[in-house]
């Protein structure tokens, strides 16, 4: 997947996650800034899940700013997928 523009998905509500995606130069790697209210309990799980999702979309270079308010794993994946697809202009946001 080729990222073309900045995009975001999710919200700052409890049990949700807000994900911002920013394209970076090729070779820059995955720059992930993760904040979570359940960092101590699930920080490693979250990071592992995000890397696995990025693997699935074959994205090696990206900047992600993730602010998690205790979202369940399917929510995290769904928000990340939407944010990435918006950044790749494969899917438009609901706001026109």
């Amino acid at each position, binding site marked *: 997947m080729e990222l073309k523009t900045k995009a975001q998905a999710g919200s700052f509500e409890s049990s949700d996650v807000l994900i911002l995606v920013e394209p970076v130069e090729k070779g820059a790697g995955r720059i992930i800034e993760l904040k979570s209210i359940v960092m*101590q309990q*699930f920080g490693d799980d979250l990071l592992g899940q995000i890397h696995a999702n990025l693997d699935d979309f074959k994205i090696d270079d990206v900047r992600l700013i993730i602010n998690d308010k205790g979202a369940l794993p399917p929510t995290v994946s769904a928000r990340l997928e939407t944010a990435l697809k918006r950044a790749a202009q494969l899917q438009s946001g609901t706001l026109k």
Partner: protein
Amino acid sequence: MKNILQREIPEELEGIGKLEAFEGAFSKLKKGWMEEKTVPPPNKAKMPHSSKICDTLRDAILKTKPRDGMTVSFHHHLRGGDNLVYEAIKILADLGIKDITLAASSLTTAHDPILPYFKDGTITQVYASGIRGELGKAIAEGVLPKPFVIHSHGGRVRSVHTGKIKIDLAILAASAADEEGNATGAHGPSAFGSMGYAAIDSWYAKQVIVVTDNIVDYPCVPQSITQNYIDYVVKVDSIGDPSKIAGGTTRITKAPMDLQIARLAAQVIEHSGELKEGFSFQVGAGGASLAVAKYIRKIMKHRSIKGSFILGGVTSYGVDMLNEGLFRSIFDVQSFDAAVSSSLLENQYHIEIPAGLYANPFNCGCMTNKLDIVVLGALEIDTNFNVNVITGSEGYVRGASGGHSDTASGANLTVVVCPSFRGRIPIVKKKVHTIVTPGESIDVLVTERGICVNPQKSELKANLESAGIKVKDIEVLAEEVEGITGKAKPIETTERVVGIVEYRDGTVIDVIHQVKE
């Protein structure tokens, strides 16, 4: 040593002394007499027509000759509006008093402002039924040199009359008091209702100061606190924020999940075999617990069942049920909202009771022993039904033991209501961080994802199943929850024990370790 719930308890802790391991809810009590001695209350005398009135709280405190290492006690009936604890501790700190043991019946976020005095050596130990907010975080991180003690409401009374808590000075807020110290919380601009937790302090403290924003003509009635125990009386401009002390009613939650849990819990209660003519009832004030009362009220009306008494922390919802004739009486140790005060004052069947009569295990029968049904909350519950109501998901102290273990041990039917997980944090799990109430006291857990009956209660399970209520194995529920949230890493703690959780009989049911920062 390990206690019966396999929690590692030190033999002895500096600042507390030798510890006794928890051996079961009734292992100590079943003998019927206790080896612990009741300490004598102080003997005092006053000359006729001498004055107890002091101009300021500072003057009154000075007259009690405060000293380093003293124990100062407070009640928490002012709820979130309390400012007296801060004012009093500030005066003691300004006088240079150090090494104070703070014995408050509970500490809430209203007490956050005293945190600096935890850090500078003014306060070095805490006894309380609950600790929250900044204080709860700081003590879990080990800010105090001596271990804190979490007790139940009933256990606090036992601790005072057996001398585990030796109160040098009790500072008791009242919303009305006279010049001799007869005092109440039932009326006045800052009316807060029952003074149930303060009674034991007035009887056993070496010196007692009554503080009020409302001096009334002698005699102040009702006499929740009586003059024969009171040394000094102070009129202050303010005992706290009246809008938070005397404001508002407790509303029933509108959260759909809490309401669903409450609806299920009411079904469980209806078919438990305990909802019958003359039953007694207690519910917590939080989330789903209070909402259960709403559905029980409907069922009682529909089936024309009348109860005997409502016990405990009382909300205006309980008062409504009394006024509707659904219950014959209310026994009120603590009023959760201000709307309760007028009922306490005017209705002779709404009766103020001291904490000892409410829940003290060391007497000839507290009222929690007469409970038929109690509905309680939980921060966590394990697959043996052990409940944590004191430490949160990060290991900080952010709750209260309160009457949880007292009522759970006494009631015929103890129902715990809670969601199976909150956000991503599992609530039903294999092991809880801290045990406050032993699983043997819990009969049934009601969550949005299933109803689990304690395997010891086969009759209850049969009753529910014959009414068509589906029952789930708690192990299965815990696995289901872990499947949804993922497996949480345990809270990281150090070896240092920063606090202990006393069971109501004074044995140690668990300890709280220092949280790694």
